[in-house]
């Protein structure tokens, strides 16, 4: 159907988007790679020349690197586990016949629309403050000593805040997937005497497999780069300095651009490994 004429028109129509994204990707990326091979301290002498792989070695061998990788993995892993498990349970519950389903769905989805700085600050102050927070009131009510959440239990606190933000996303996607399940299949299994657990394990869960994979991959990409939640709560203290936050500190706080850029290249490689898996799934589903 497409003629030579319409093909070249199509190319022209695509050009602005392609050129812009190409520039957006290549220009900063090239600069980051160049900086990563330099000793570059804007506030202390500027560009001090090439240093080879020095920054890469120093970034990895600094005492802050492994703890930051660990913090990143704990947060990503913790949030994924919570959102997927509770997301499946919530989707199962919301898929049942009930009164006011639409309203409940709205209540469950709402946290996703709250900007990260708001949710982090509200949780930090109104819930987790050791003196005036709601949790402190609750603890005192039961005669327990209030906990200073963000310093004594910093990781679980951050994981809780981020999970609250992402649970709606997981739930919504899993619920959408659940609704495409053929109910006759479930009814047939029920008539054949399959227990609810068996029906879940053999029919529902396999059906959700792909949706769960998509949830895990998309969330991983976003979770690897969470920033505001840490910026307004702990500022990277108490063991919550993630790889993203460490690079941010190297670049903007200590203005060590070379070192920060080397870290940036590591982060880009890490994100690309995850992205490669996601692309395979998305690509399979794409029939052009």
């Amino acid at each position, binding site marked *: *159907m*497409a003629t030579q004429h319409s*093909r070249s028109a*199509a190319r022209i*129509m695509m050009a*602005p*988007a392609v050129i*812009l*994204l190409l520039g*957006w990707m290549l220009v900063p*990326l090239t600069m*980051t790679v160049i*900086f990563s091979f330099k000793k570059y301290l804007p506030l202390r002498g500027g560009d001090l020349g090439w240093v080879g792989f020095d920054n890469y070695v120093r970034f990895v061998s600094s005492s802050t690197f492994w703890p930051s990788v660990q913090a990143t993995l704990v947060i990503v892993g913790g949030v994924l586990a919570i959102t997927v498990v509770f997301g499946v349970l919530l989707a199962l*519950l*919301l898929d*049942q*016949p*009930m009164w*006011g389903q639409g309203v409940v*769905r*709205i*209540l469950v989805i*709402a*946290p996703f*629309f709250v*900007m*990260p*700085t*708001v949710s982090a*600050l*509200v949780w*930090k*102050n*109104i819930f987790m403050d050791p003196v*005036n927070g*709601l949790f402190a*009131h609750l603890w005192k*009510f039961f005669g327990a000593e209030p906990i200073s959440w963000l310093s004594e239990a910093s990781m679980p606190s951050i994981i809780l805040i981020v999970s*609250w933000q992402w649970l709606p*996303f997981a739930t*919504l*996607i899993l619920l959408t997937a659940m609704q495409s399940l053929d*109910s006759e299949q479930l009814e047939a299994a029920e008539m054949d005497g399959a227990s609810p657990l068996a029906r879940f394990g053999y029919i529902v869960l396999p059906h959700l497999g*792909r949706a769960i994979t*998509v949830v895990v991959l998309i969330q991983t990409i976003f979770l690897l*780069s969470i*920033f*505001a939640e840490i910026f*307004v709560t702990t500022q990277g203290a108490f063991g919550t300095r993630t790889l*993203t936050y460490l690079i*941010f500190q190297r670049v*903007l706080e200590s203005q060590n651009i070379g070192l920060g850029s080397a870290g940036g290249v590591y*982060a880009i490689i890490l*994100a690309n490994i995850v*992205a490669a898996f996601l*692309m395979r*799934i*998305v*690509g399979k589903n794409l029939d*052009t």
Partner: protein
Amino acid sequence: MARSVTPQRKAINTIAAWAVGLVIFFPILWTILTSFKTEAQAINDPPLFLFFDWTLENYAVVQERSNYMRFLWNSIIIAGGSTVLGIIIAVPAAWSMAFVPSKRTKDILLWMLSTKMLPAVGVLYPIYLIFIRMGLLDSRAGLVIVLMLINLPIIVWMLYTYFKEIPGEILEAARMDGASLKEEILYVLTPMAIPGIASTLLLNIILAWNEAFWTLNLTAAQAAPLTAFIASYSSPEGLFYAKLSAASTMAIAPILILGWFSQKQLVRGLTFGAVK
């Protein structure tokens, strides 16, 4: 899955689901309630749920002290501007990929998506440097450009999946009936494309509104949107829960309302068509 169940079962479902829903929604509800309390009531022990002297004072104070309207205006310009600009650039691209697909269309789509995966922090300094050189630091124009670029892949993808659903036969029929290209676009395609464009607009305004890496790192006093406005409450002085709540409520209310309208598009837009 519409199954018939006993009324008892339905009642149990209802109670369980509402309980869970309210627990998840509680932080938002509590923030909204706290915004109507006085500072003393906001930290009262035991916490006050509904029986307190409702006041609008906090909203007035927040507006007066921090000039909320300017941050709101910045958010509107940045979120709205970046989305509209993105759509103007993405519509022709998505259009041609949906209606004149070539062998490379799939690769281009996936490549666009891959630019979205680039971790922002990896290119923080180059962008920062470019912004300084071009005088874009702390300007709304700069943020409009950056947020347009980071959301462009999602915009192209969403539009593409919507355009894909417009049947090509209709175009051929219009052409055979003697419609010119202009008529074809104006009277046949546009009406069918508008719902998809509207959904894309909605979801991307939400994403841009809540974006909190570039908006925090590339703005100061002039161009700061609501994300930065709220972050400025992170080092409190004195009593401030009620004011923090009022500021938070004002920052999330517009998007919460938009979000509720867009929940159906959310899944499609954020999974790039992998889950429908």
